């Protein structure tokens, strides 16, 4: 196998160009596609991957910069979304004035 190609040039194999060379064909047979890898990366957030899944994913991530980015992005999302960010991690919004008075009214009645 052409080891020399595993550098930056190999990353280009994912960019669209027509004639598949021997190298690309070989890669396709041992590595899952980006579509499959994206599924595996997402599944890895929710369950342990099987040995075979991990192996395929590892091979693919070595070769594909785009999927490496996706992996980093998922990791970032998980890290930020699960960090206690206080009130900044809430969507914008406020109680409508009518609801506010209705709730106060309900509290007054319940407190009697």
């Amino acid at each position, binding site marked *: 196998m052409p080891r020399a190609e595993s550098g930056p040039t190999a990353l280009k194999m994912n960019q669209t160009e027509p004639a598949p060379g021997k190298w690309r064909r070989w890669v396709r047979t041992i590595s899952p596609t980006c*579509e499959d890898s994206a599924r595996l990366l997402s599944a890895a957030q929710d369950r342990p991957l099987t040995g075979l899944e991990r192996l395929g994913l590892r091979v693919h991530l070595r070769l594909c910069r785009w999927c490496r980015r996706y992996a980093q992005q998922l990791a970032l*999302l998980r890290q930020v979304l*699960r960090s206690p960010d206080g009130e900044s991690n809430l969507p914008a919004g*406020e109680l409508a004035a009518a609801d506010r008075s209705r709730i106060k009214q309900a509290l007054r009645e*319940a407190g009697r």
Partner: protein
Amino acid sequence: MADEGPRAPGAADAPRATPGAASNPETWVDAHGDYLFRYALARVRDPVRATDLVQETFLAALKGGGFAGRSTERTWLTGILKHKIADHFRRAGRETPFTDLEFFREGEAALFEREGWSKGVWQADQAPGDWSAKAGEELDRAAFWQAFWECVGGLPPRIAEVFVRREIDEVECDELCRTLGVSPNNLWVMLHRARLALRRCLENNWVGK
């Protein structure tokens, strides 16, 4: 009317102080109402339902005899609200509609090449971009969260709820499957597509700005 679920935390074990002795419950509404509403709205993507949950929370807090003073008043009320939200999802016990299971199916397919030797490879204009400029050391969290909630707002409400409960509230998958009435596989597909859709939205609305 509202309070048929299990007792709220802090409600059962709070000392039986005279309601309103420490603070007038009506002041809770101004002090914490908006915060609790946003907290509920993040999880239950329906303003009417979120408002109801806030009201139920205040009423349960009142019934429980007032604030016991072990934490802040807001933490105490948020704890009650969390239980109200969990009850809401447990009680709802709804079937997940077909449209939610189909969400972003075509969107997902369109992200990848469909033909020839590149089948399954990211489309060049859909492939994940470089986030390092925005996501580095000095990540602007306020800007991130703002973009995040805008992007979540673009998801179908039920998908958004599932995603937030899984990613922010760290609810386990089997509990989500139970309350949603879907198989683990269906859940993973929903989460996967939500992640793909959010990734793209964040890249456009956060990284790209």
